[in-house]
């Protein structure tokens, strides 16, 4: 894949099965975000393929998208809506859930206190927590996360590790681009270093 004058993601060949996580590491500009966006099908490589359960994702992009949850650098939240409203509209487009389920997802990431505050008034770390609650609500088997611990305190970073661990135990897959490797304490974590 070309990014301007640079040829990134050349000759990558990797497979990931349920219960496995892949941590993508590399310096700034090494192509971590490009890899994640390619995996999501947001960017199409000039050459190469992404296969989901053996089939090229481009054959059924909608079906593939229904199976993944992606959180990019920035949390996809609206400043003028509360945390609850944001999740209701963002995750609600994907699947139906009850108000209790929504509150429970917010409680699991420690966001109950500020659930009715407009996101504009929250700190970057608090916003990240709200986005992570959305990740739980989406109910997708494949999580693609770009710097999931950015802006989070130590507690928050441990919470992300726990969330990923639980997701893997339930048979999910996780691909995460990270600057600092997450300690997941499981044998099913692989690391990919991008030059």
């Amino acid at each position, binding site marked *: 894949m070309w990014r301007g004058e640079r040829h990134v993601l050349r000759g990558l060949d*990797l*497979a990931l099965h349920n219960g496995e996580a892949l941590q993508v590491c590399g310096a700034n500009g090494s192509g971590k975000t490009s890899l994640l966006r390619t995996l999501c099908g947001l960017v199409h490589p000039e050459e190469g393929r*992404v296969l*989901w359960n053996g089939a090229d994702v481009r054959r059924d992009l909608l079906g593939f*998208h*229904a199976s993944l949850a992606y959180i990019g650098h*920035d949390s*996809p939240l609206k400043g003028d*809506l509360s945390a609850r409203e944001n999740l209701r509209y963002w995750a*609600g487009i994907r699947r139906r859930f009850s108000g209790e389920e929504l509150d429970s997802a917010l409680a699991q990431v420690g966001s109950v206190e500020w659930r009715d505050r407009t996101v504009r008034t929250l700190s970057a770390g608090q916003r990240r927590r709200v986005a992570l609650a959305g990740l739980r609500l989406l109910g997708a088997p494949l999580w693609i996360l770009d710097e999931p611990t950015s802006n989070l305190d130590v507690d928050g970073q441990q919470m992300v590790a726990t969330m990923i661990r639980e997701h893997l135990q339930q048979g999910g897959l996780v691909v995460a681009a990270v600057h600092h490797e997450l300690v997941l304490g499981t044998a099913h974590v692989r690391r990919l270093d991008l030059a």
Partner: protein
Amino acid sequence: MNTSVLKLHATTCCAPQASALRAAQLVLQRDLTLAYRRRGQIIQPLVFFVLITTLFPFAVSPELARLREIAPAALWIGALLASLLALEFLFRDDAQDGTLEQYVLSGQSLTWLLFAKTVTHWLLTGLPLTLVTPLAAFSLGVAYPAMPAIGAAVAIGTAALSLLGAISAGLTLGVRRGGVLLTLLTLPLSLPILIFGARAAELAIKGASVAAPLYLLGAFAVLGVTLAPLAAAAAVRISLE
């Protein structure tokens, strides 16, 4: 070997999807809630329209017969420019905060979600313009019997403008300060709407039948409903790459 192959396998399945109708309803609700909280953004094109149309009597002449002659042009140029002013906000905020990316990845049809967004945009800009049009027309000396036909033409015309504008708004997403480019792209496409809309207003003022220009405006709106969301979705996908 330069070709990359990335294989992902899962035996677990995703949670049941929300229906397309439910998804569209949430897009509509969300945009209406946001608009209510950012009222200034909605009022801006409306104030612009009212200012343009009410300034004409000062610039041309307070003579009602003269004003009635220029009323179709004044009303439609005002409506067109006000619609263009509002178009800039159609996708811009959603692109900046990652909402559009989430729409693409939602597993729902992007075409359908963007159609819902465009309908909301019309509800927030075209509909208020339609409601204010009789007031503006009155200030230009237009008689009461002509108002319903002029209002209908503005309603249909602004719907077609919102749909056409969605394509341009999608195409200019990736462009910095794309407002001018957006206007340049949309203006030539919207000329037929301006021509037929102004013609409808002119015929209505004269008391003649407005069926022909209204049908033509309707045809543009139907063409917009069928093609514009598809084109806008393609444009948004390209802009997000």
